[in-house]
C-alpha cells in the first residue's frame, strides 16, 4: 500500500534556511528515516541527516517531527494520516550545521566536566556488588545519548544563556548514576550537581522523561533524588550538625 506523502524538510545551514516541500513515496511499515533516505536517493542526494543503527539503539537520528523531539528511526509513518503533511526540522536547542544535522558539541563539553568514576581501592576482579544495588545506576546507563532530553528541556531550549550554568537532564542522570554506583569512591556528586551542574534550575516539568526513547525515569529516579540529596546535605540542620561533629562524611 504505497502512497505519496507530503513532507516539509528544513534545508539550510548556520546562515539560515527554509522548509522545503517534497512529495515522496511511502510504503507500508516505513519510518520517517526511511522517507528521508528515499529523498536522498531520489530527489536530493545532498540532504544531510545523521543516523547509524536504525534500530533505536545508537541515538544518532534525533530531530523534530511536527515539532516533537523524536528519533527518526523510531517514528512510524503509520502514526500519520496519508493526507497529513509531515514536517521534519533539526533539534532546536542546538546550532544547525546543515539541514537536519546540528552541532551537539555542547553535550560533549558538559560530559567532560563531570568528574570521572573514581575506582575504589580494590584489585581488578575483586569488585563485589549486589544486583539490586547496581540496578539503580544501570537504569541511567541505558541512555543512548540521543540528547532529545537536552533538546526538549526548556531550561536549555528557551534560554541560550542557561547553557553555561546548566548541564541538562542527560548529565544530571550521569551524576545520579555515579552517586548511586555502589563502589564509586567520591562523596561529592550531589555537591557537584548543585554547584557545577545547576540542578536547582530544573523545575521538574518531566518533559525530559516524556521524550526519552529508553523510557528512563529521568525526573523521578534521578533528578528528584539528587535534588533531595542536595537539600539534605546543605539545608538539613541534623545533617549539618552530623557533618560538624564528624558523624557524617562530607
Amino acid at each position, binding site marked *: 500500500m504505497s502512497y505519496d506523502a507530503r513532507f516539509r524538510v528544513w534545508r539550510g545551514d548556520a546562515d539560515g534556511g527554509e522548509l522545503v516541500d517534497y512529495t515522496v513515496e511511502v510504503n507500508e511499515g516505513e519510518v520517517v528515516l526511511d522517507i528521508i533516505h528515499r529523498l536522498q536517493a531520489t530527489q536530493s542526494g545532498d540532504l544531510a541527516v545523521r543516523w547509524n543503527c536504525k534500530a533505536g539503539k545508537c541515538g544518532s537520528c534525533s530531530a523534530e517531527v511536527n515539532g516533537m523531539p523524536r528519533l527518526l528511526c523510531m517514528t512510524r509513518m503509520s502514526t500519520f494520516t496519508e493526507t497529513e503533511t509531515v514536517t521534519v526540522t533539526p533539534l532546536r536547542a542546538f546550532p544547525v550545521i546543515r539541514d537536519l544535522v546540528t552541532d551537539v558539541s555542547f553535550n560533549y563539553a558538559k560530559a567532560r566536566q563531570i568528574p570521572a568514576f573514581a575506582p575504589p581501592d580494590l584489585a581488578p576482579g575483586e569488585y563485589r556488588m549486589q544486583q539490586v544495588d547496581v540496578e539503580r545506576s544501570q537504569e541511567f546507563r541505558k541512555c*543512548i545519548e540521543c540528547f532529545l532530553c537536552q533538546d526538549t528541556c526548556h531550561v536549555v531550549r528557551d534560554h541560550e544563556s542557561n547553557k553555561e550554568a546548566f548541564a541538562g537532564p542527560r548529565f544530571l542522570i550521569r551524576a545520579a548514576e555515579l552517586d548511586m554506583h555502589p563502589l564509586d569512591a567520591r562523596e561529592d556528586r550531589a555537591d557537584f550537581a548543585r554547584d557545577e551542574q545547576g540542578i536547582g534550575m530544573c523545575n521538574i516539568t518531566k518533559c525530559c522523561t516524556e521524550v526519552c526513547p529508553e523510557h528512563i525515569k529521568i525526573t523521578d529516579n534521578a533528578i528528584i533524588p539528587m535534588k533531595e540529596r542536595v537539600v539534605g546535605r546543605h539545608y538539613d540542620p541534623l545533617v549539618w550538625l552530623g557533618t560538624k561533629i564528624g558523624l557524617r562524611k562530607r
Partner: protein
Amino acid sequence: MAADLEHFEYDVVIVGAGGAGLRAAIAAREAGLRTAIICKSLFGKAHTVMAEGGIAASMGNVNSNDSWQVHFRDTMRGGKFLNSWRMAELHAKEAPDRVWELETYGALFDRTPDGRISQRNFGGHEYPRLAHVGDRTGLELIRTLQQKIVSLQQDDERETGDPESRLKVFAEVTITDLLQDPSGAIAGAFGYWRESGRFVRFNAPAVVLATGGIGKSFKVTSNSWEYTGDGHALALRAGSTLVNMEFIQFHPTGMVWPPSVKGILVTESVRGDGGVLKNSEGKRFMFDYVPDVFRGQYAETEEEGDRWYTDPDTNKRPPELLPRDEVARAINSEVKAGRGSPHGGVFLDIASRRPPEEILKKLPSMHHQFKELADVDITKEAMEVGPTCHYVMGGVEVDPDTAAAAGVPGLFAAGEVSGGMHGSNRLGGNSLSDLLVFGARAGTGAAAYVLALGDRRPDVDQAVVDAAAAAALAPFEEEGGENPYTLHQEMQQTMNDLVGIIRTAAEIERALERLEDLKARAEHLTVEGHRQFNPGWHLALDLRNMLAVSECVARAALLRQESRGGHTRDDYPTMDPHWRGRNLICSADGDGIVVREQPMPSMRGDLLALFDTGELAKYLTPDELAAVPAPATPTDGSGS
C-alpha cells in the same frame, strides 16, 4: 589547497572509535603517546552499541570449571580450525583481565548472587561465559570506554591545562587514504570533516585500523551505514593483505519486514526460549535439515524437541538450535523452494508456543523491538525472519602479538577489520572480547613501534597528499555521471544474490563480471551540492572501498572449493582437510584484487593436546594427524 587543509601531528592515529579503537587509544595514551581517535560518526555511536549478548571471558564466576583452555577449544571448534591459533590463545588467556579492567573504568555488569560479574550461556560456549548487561552489553562497553577516554582527558587537563593535549577525538571525520613514505612506511592519514567537507591531514608514524566490518556491501545486513569496509580497503591500497575474506557470518534470524528494519537482529534467545521456525505451509522444517555430523545430537520429533525445554537431560534439543550457519542455510533453502513468508523470510513463532506473560518476561526487548519498529505484537503473531549479513570473519592479516598489519610498517589493525582470530565462523560473545584484547594489543604494539622509531619518522611527499585530495574531489568534477545511491543498491543486490549465503562457481563468476562493470561505472559518479555534510559525496567515496572489499569476498569465495563455516559452496558441499591448512590472502594489484593460497602455521603441541585425536581427525589431513604428538595427559573428556 593549503587553506583548505588542516594539519595535525600525532604519534598514533586510531581510525575507528568502536570497542577496538577506543581500547587501542587508551593503551597508546597510557604508553605516553599523543593519540588521535578518528570517528566516522559522533563519539559513542559506533556499531559496537548494537552487540547484545555479552563479552566472552573464562572468569569462571558461574561455573568454576571454565578456563582459558576450554574457551580456546570452543573458539577453534566454532571457527572449524581455520583460526589463527595464536590469536585464539591470546584472546582466551587475556579476555578475563580485559573485562575486569572495565569495572575499574566504571562498567556495571549484571551480578551473580555472590556479587561477581554474572555470566550467561551462549551457542558454542561450553560453560556460562558471557559477561553482560541485560541485552545491551555493547552499549555498556562503548559508554565505559568513552568515559574512560574522558577521564584520561581530565587527567591531562589537570597536568597540562589542555584536555586534548594527549588524546583528542575527531568526531565525524572520514579517512580516505593512508599516507606513506616512499618505502611504504606509514607517515599519516588523509581525510575530510563531514561537517565542513574540509580536508584534514594527520602526520603520524603509526595508524591503527579499527573500522569494523563490511556489511553495507550486502542488501540485507544488521550493519549500519558506516560498515563500508574502509579499513579493509585502506590496508589493501597501502599494500597490506587481507585473510579469510570468503568467510561471512549470516545470522539466521534478522527481521525481513517491514522494510525499515530489514536485517535488524532477532536474538537467538527467541529460539532458546521456545520459538520455532515454520514455512508458509505451517511446517516446522528444521527437522528436515539436520546434517549428518549433527545427527543423533538433535531431536528427531517435535514431541522430543518440545520436551527438551523442560527436561534437557533425557531429551535432545530441537533442531532450531543448530549452529547459526546451519539454520541460515535451511531458511535460505525454504525460501528458494517457494515456501517462504510473504516478505521473503520464514516465520518465527513464539506466540502459539508460550503464554503472553512468559514471552513478556523472558523477551522484553524483542517484544519492544517488534512493537516499536514493526507494530507487531510477538505475543499474538509470528515474526517474519531471514538471514542477514552480520559479521566478516576475514580482515587485515596481522601479527597476533602486536596486531601489526602484514607488509606495511606502522600499520596496525584490531577488531572486526582484522582477520584470523575467528577462522571460518565466529562464536557469539567472542567479538566484544576480541575488540578489547586485540584493541589493547594494537595500541601497545603501535606505541612500541613509535618509541623504537625515535626521531626517524617517515615523511610523505606532497604529491601523495595532493593525489589524495584530488581523488576525494573527483565525484564533484564529473558531470552527467551516475547516482552513487543507484550504484550502491546494484552492488548490494549483486552480493546478496550471487555471493551470499549459498554460493556456486557460476554465480560467483557472474558476480565478478558485474563488479567489474560497477567498478568501471564508479569511475564516473556525479554528486550534487557542495562539500558541507553531503551524504551523496560520502557514499561516492565509500563505494570505492565497498567495491574493493566485495571483489575480495568474491575472488576468495571462488577459489575456496569447500564448505566451511561462513562459506558454503553448493558445488563443494563438504569440509576438505586440504583446505583447512590454507589461508587465502587478498592483495591489491592495480585496479584489481589477486588471491593466493598460504599455508597456515602448525598449531603448537600443547594446544593440540587440548583436543582428542578423534576430534582432530575431523579437521586434519592424515599427514598432519600423523605428526601430532601423543598427548601426555588425557583431556577432560568434555569434547563434544
